[in-house]
């Protein structure tokens, strides 16, 4: 099922003495989530991701705007009428019910014509359990399960009623690092097998990058960018998206365009076609630096950290906006650790230029790709 959000907003007003304070959790969202895709909803804590998810599933009513599932306007429907499956952050498994009883619970809620015969219910439960691989755990109680197993039960419970949309709120945040890796693969596999349109909330960009078909980046209730993970990484729509995705973080320089060239701290570092002369932010990915004794960018060397395959070079530059910048180069390149300075040339594909007025991306150096 395709999900369409039209001009969707949610404003919370405080209670009691704070009733005049308004918080815009979701601000004029316009986007379409394509059918059958796994979509990561990414943003820093408190940016409104969970609110957006609650709006889609119907637990919150929008202040403004419409929500469409396919061609159906579901904005005013209560959650139970929307046919969504939801996995909550703490799984919300009923503690006194066995795994089996938890999974069958949504089916037993159905009344009248929608109610399935008992055998059909059991068949569906068995199918959902098989899908998430918990068939052997059916008689256990939730507190006898590991975090990862609880997560699977929660997913099975959400899937058992064959929802048109599956929503997961921070599905991995309660798991330890090893399980997190395993479980995200699992979510990918389950989504591929069922083909249900899935939206999951996360604040971990790596999580979103690794399994999503599409990523939605939001900040302070505002949609920043929707796109495939690689596109978002390679062509971030604005400075925030560029900074939020990628580890180590992108290096942001206070730069300027001067007669078709990008200048960092007075030095012309690379050609930059199609942009007028103006001050700009230049974001350079750590892997965009190439050690080059004849390169145009001269930096002060702070520290060299060899990390196996790659070497991380910490350096300073007068135009850099933080304390020290970081470059990642293949370890084979020999770096003279004792030298006070070091010269780089830049890989144009890894350099992103952002306007200083609205922080929007102005165009990458590569191939004159100007938006």
């Amino acid at each position, binding site marked *: 099922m395709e999900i369409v959000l039209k001009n969707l907003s949610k404003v919370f007003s405080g209670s009691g003495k704070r009733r005049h304070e308004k918080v815009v959790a979701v601000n004029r969202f316009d986007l379409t989530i394509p059918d059958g895709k796994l979509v990561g909803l990414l943003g820093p804590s408190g940016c409104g991701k969970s609110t957006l998810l609650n709006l889609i599933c119907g637990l919150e009513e929008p202040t403004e705007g419409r929500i469409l599932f396919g061609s159906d306007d579901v904005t005013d429907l209560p959650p139970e009428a929307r046919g969504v499956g*939801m996995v*909550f952050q703490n799984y919300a498994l*009923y503690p006194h*019910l066995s795994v089996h009883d938890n999974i069958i619970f949504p089916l037993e*809620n159905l009344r009248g014509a929608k109610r399935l015969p008992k055998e059909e219910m059991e068949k569906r439960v068995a199918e959902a359990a098989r899908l998430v691989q918990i068939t052997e755990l059916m008689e256990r109680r939730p507190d006898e399960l590991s975090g990862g197993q609880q997560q699977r039960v929660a997913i099975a419970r959400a899937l058992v009623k064959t929802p048109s949309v599956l929503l997961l709120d921070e599905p991995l945040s309660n798991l330890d690092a090893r399980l997190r890796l395993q479980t995200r693969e699992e979510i990918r596999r389950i989504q591929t097998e069922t083909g249900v349109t899935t939206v999951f909330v996360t604040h971990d960009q790596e999580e979103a990058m690794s399994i999503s078909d599409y990523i939605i980046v939001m900040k302070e209730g505002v949609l920043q960018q929707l796109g495939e993970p690689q596109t978002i990484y390679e062509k971030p729509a604005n400075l925030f998206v560029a900074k939020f995705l990628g580890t180590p973080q992108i290096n942001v320089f206070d730069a300027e365009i001067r007669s078709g060239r990008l200048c960092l701290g007075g030095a012309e570092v690379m050609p930059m076609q199609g942009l007028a002369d103006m001050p700009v932010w230049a974001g350079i990915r750590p892997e965009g630096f190439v050690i080059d004794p004849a390169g145009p960018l001269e930096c002060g060397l702070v520290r060299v950290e060899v990390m196996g395959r790659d070497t991380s070079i910490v350096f300073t530059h007068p135009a850099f906006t933080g304390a020290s910048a970081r470059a990642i180069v293949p370890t084979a390149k020999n770096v003279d650790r004792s030298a006070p300075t070091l010269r780089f040339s830049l890989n144009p594909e890894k350099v992103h230029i952002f306007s200083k007025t609205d922080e929007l991306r102005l165009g990458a150096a590569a191939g004159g790709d100007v938006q």
Partner: protein
Amino acid sequence: MKRKRSSGWLYLLPAILLLGAFMVYPLIDVLIYSVEEGYNSASQTFNGVGLYNYSHVLRDPYFMQALKNTFIIVIITVPVSTGLALLISLQLSKIKKLRDLFQTVFFLPYVTNTLAVGLVFMILFKRTPYSDGLINLMISIFGAGPVDFIDGPYAAKMFVMCFYTVWVVLPFKVLILTSALASVKKEYYNAARVDGTPRWRVFTKITLPAISPMLFYLIITGFIGAFKAYSDEVALFGTDLNAAGMNTIVGYIYDMLYGNGGGYPSYAAAAALILFAIVLTITVINLMVSRKHVHY
């Protein structure tokens, strides 16, 4: 280290002295009293040891009346007050506006002197030569004749008694259940909503199991409290409860001890131990039932 040891006892000394004198010693003493036959409180002598006191108490019509009254009060007020408290706290937990106000109002009876408010109830229910009382007037709207709830038929007196008891014990139960309900994770309710769970099913399958430990706690303490009913009765019917036919076991114990029929600590002790045995039995049964039904 030696200094430390003695100082520990020093800190405990006041508590040990007071508890020893007013809890431990009486506990042993009450057992002795209960088996001393023919105890005379003036001469402090007795003429034998045995179970006569128990059999005397059990044959005393006043005690049987008190036993009957107490059981009726327990059987009516414990389920009614617990059920009503559950109903009220459920509604409280689902509203936002006026919630604080309602909670404050509902708690008021807890902090009022039950003897004092009992007088108000008495006036509302009593028939006097001057007036049938407010409650009777309201009943007469529905065509029923005036009843004296305070000096009249047994059933009417028992009704007021139970009504007042529920009024008095409800604040505590509402308070406990409201906080128990507030501690049920909201995610369960959200999950149930997304799954389209009917209200009744949400209540029986999610709410009730989640608050069952607290509910059983209230039922157990409710039983214990109701078995010790006494001052609410005095509030409504005055100190001479035997005359009103509304005495309770605890009332019987005090009557045996002091007042017009007093001076029989042996009978009081036997009655107290019978009460203790009843309460203990009921509590054990309660605990056994709760072990089967409570989800911790």
